[in-house]
């Protein structure tokens, strides 16, 4: 349960950063925080008490001893997607910085109304 609380708090903190922080790098960090929160949440949904990783590394293990492998597989995908988005976000920030010479998101409002 504490995992839920922690994960949701991470998500909320991330969204807070996205909503409030003025520095675009911090906003991108907020996005990664959100990602981590979601990933933790996903993994914790797959967790089953007293069970082990879903790898048949020794013959004594049976299917009943393992946690749900699907969330882990999903998280793997989600992490990669998160990385990709972050990388792209950072390169966009670089482009914006080149153009405007500032990282303050309030100053970047060429497009409005």
């Amino acid at each position, binding site marked *: *349960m504490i*995992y*839920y*609380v922690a994960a*949701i*708090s991470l*998500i*909320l903190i991330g*969204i*807070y950063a996205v*909503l*409030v922080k003025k520095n675009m790098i911090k906003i991108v960090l907020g996005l990664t925080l959100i990602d981590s929160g979601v990933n933790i*949440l996903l993994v*914790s*949904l*797959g*967790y*089953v*008490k007293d069970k082990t*990783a*879903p*790898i*048949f*590394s020794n013959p004594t293990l049976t*299917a*009943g001893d*393992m946690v*749900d*492998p*699907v*969330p*882990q*597989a999903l998280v*793997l*995908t989600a*992490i*990669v*997607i998160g*990385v*990709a*988005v972050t*990388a*792209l976000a*950072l*390169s*966009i920030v*670089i*482009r914006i910085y*080149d153009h405007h010479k500032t990282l303050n998101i309030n100053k970047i409002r060429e497009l409005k109304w």
Partner: protein
Amino acid sequence: MRKAIAVLFLGFIGYYLLSTFLLVPFGVVRVLEGVGLKYLQDGLQQTGAANLVTSIVVNYRGFDTLGEVTVLFLAATGMGALLYSKRPTERARQNASVIVKTGARILFPLIIILGAYVFIHGHLTPGGGFQGGAIIASGFLLMFMSYRTYHVNHVILSRVESSAGSVFVIIGLLGLAYGSSFLANILPLGTANTLFSAGVIPLIYVAVGFKVGAELTALLDTMLQTVK
């Protein structure tokens, strides 16, 4: 003002999210008929991979992974397109201290080997193509940080990316041609827990490993080159 509004609404959302997730019991098997359980029961026989996460990622949900590889490829391409400039400007990097440099020189081959190990054994032990690729890229990152003039050859990176990606799709297409469907396993499963087992899974993971390693390295390189 904005902070207050943000906190207010986030509090709202947090409350509702939490109260909903609390309805989902933690740490127990909730769905008896779920696909997760089926994978656990039949995965070893069906795919021959000891690591079930790998068998899900590469085999059962291999299509997702193809998409995932594409996403990473997209990010690299996108960055390349966004940060493209005719004459790349080199960022004034500082040379690291001798200790770091020497350490890096020693560690670099080891890191690469570790990365290779991780993705080659992806179907046996925790790890896989993505993890291995990330490790390899971290090796390159170390080199970037230690040596001011360290460069990687773009053409080679791009070739590795392209060919690894193509190998993934070609394996999938071979499955279509010789097996029953796209990405279907066409190789013998072998005995579980040995290196040459699990059909096409290791092949795909090796390709993914190369691809991820090359792509992440390319990402780092692109960012370093254009930041002024």
